[in-house]
């Protein structure tokens, strides 16, 4: 494990609006196998986020023209419940959720042995029941657990976490307030065994030093969350 030692500045003493240290995650809880009908499922609470994920498949991809003859396709649907946010969200896909659906499929696919299931689809349904900043990362983290719960053969369990900049400080895991009022947001998904990054996005403004620091923070956060993912599976299936 790599321990990051931050030099010079006083981040260690910086307290955030919600009282967390700069490298502190919000409380997180993951439960595997929570739905009856789905092949695999997981429920995650991460700070004020509540996310439910169901996985179906590998199953036949009934739209022939979208089938891949030599491998499976990972399809993802990220959806926010109308009651998940302060002002009711109109049901159905908007541009944001379409984009998140796409990048989430791309974040998860690299970990799956897709070549084992030609012409199939693995459908991942991410339902944000309550949102408090960082829902895409919460969705990806929960989706990996749900895919493992479905028994899908994978190289690794993808895990995601964001870092960013708020009140001029680089901090881990932005809360909703920090995300809205902050200066930058950097969500990252990674396969922790190899450290390969399967998703990275950024918006806002970071110097390259700040960017590297934020990325390192996010990766370190991912490692911590990864342990919680594994614990969720151990709790469900025993050691």
């Amino acid at each position, binding site marked *: 494990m790599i321990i990051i030692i931050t030099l010079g500045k006083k981040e260690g003493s910086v307290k955030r609006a919600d009282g967390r240290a700069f490298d502190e995650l919000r409380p997180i809880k993951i439960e595997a196998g929570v739905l009856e*009908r789905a092949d695999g499922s997981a429920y995650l609470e991460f700070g004020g986020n509540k996310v439910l994920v169901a996985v179906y498949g590998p199953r036949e991809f009934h739209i022939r023209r979208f089938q891949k003859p030599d491998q499976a396709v990972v399809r993802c649907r990220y*959806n926010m419940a109308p*009651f998940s946010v302060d002002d009711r969200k109109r*049901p159905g896909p908007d541009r944001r959720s379409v984009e998140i659906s796409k990048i989430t499929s791309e974040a998860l696919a690299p970990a799956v042995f897709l070549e084992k299931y030609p012409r199939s689809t693995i459908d991942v*349904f991410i339902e944000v029941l*309550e949102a408090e900043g960082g829902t895409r990362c919460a969705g990806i983290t929960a989706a990996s657990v749900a895919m493992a719960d479905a028994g899908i053969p994978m190289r690794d369990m993808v895990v995601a976490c964001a870092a960013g900049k708020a009140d001029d400080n680089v901090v881990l895991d932005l809360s909703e307030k920090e995300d809205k009022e902050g200066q930058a947001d950097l969500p990252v998904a990674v396969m922790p065994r190899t450290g390969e990054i399967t998703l990275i996005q950024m918006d806002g403004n970071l110097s390259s030093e700040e960017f590297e620091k934020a990325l390192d923070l996010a990766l370190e956060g991912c490692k911590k969350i990864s342990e919680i993912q594994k614990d969720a599976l151990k709790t469900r299936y025993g050691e």
Partner: protein
Amino acid sequence: MVNKMVDIIPEITKKSITNLINNGERADNRALDEYRDITLETGVITKAEGSARVKIGNTQIMIGAKSQIAEPFPDTPKNGVLMTNSELLPMASPTFEPGPPDERSVELSRVVDRCLREGGVIDLEKLCIIPGEKVWMIFLDIHVLDYDGNLMDAAALGCLAAIMDTKIPEATVRDGEIVIDKEKLIELPIKEKALLCTFAKIGNELVLDPSLEEERVMGARITVGVIEDGSVCAMQKGGEEPLTKEEIMKAIKITKEKTDILRKHLN
């Protein structure tokens, strides 16, 4: 993704379920007029004005209530508005597909809406802020998470629980302007507690709270909504086979008894 999947039921499954029911038994050992285990939690979504998670057996539904200030409908200028929506999430069943609501989803929200509206659950006149101009609009979003039969009863129970859990900010009119006090939250004006009971007709019998397996083989379905004094406020038949008057009257009688028991979950 709006293609409809075909549900093929083996003849042998249909026969074995029907034979059991004709003998007064069910595959999960319930009596013909017995619900599966019911659990109900409220206040599960902090950001919603009211919320509930209801489970009947393995069927699981979440309901969130949100409020908005909007213009009233021209024909009811002094009434607030109640809007009920439902989504059959693709996570809930391999036969649900993403996309705009299909007929099953529309039927679900309309029947639940009918039960709440015709049952007079909310005193909509008390949700009026400025007659003809501004009223409270309450959205109920039914989110089906896991589908193992009998969505209607679960949704109606969950909606009622969510309504009872809902608190909206106080809106007052000062000099023609609406002042919303987000610190002062008030409960919705509740007049009635209307609920639904659903029966499937299988073989010669009506079975209460059909499981998914039973829904797949049923010939007809009847849903009855009643208010606290036992009067009927909503009804909906489904399925391709007919029902007799006796069967419908029997369904109403059982609904009156069973909704009294269902209401105990609300306290």
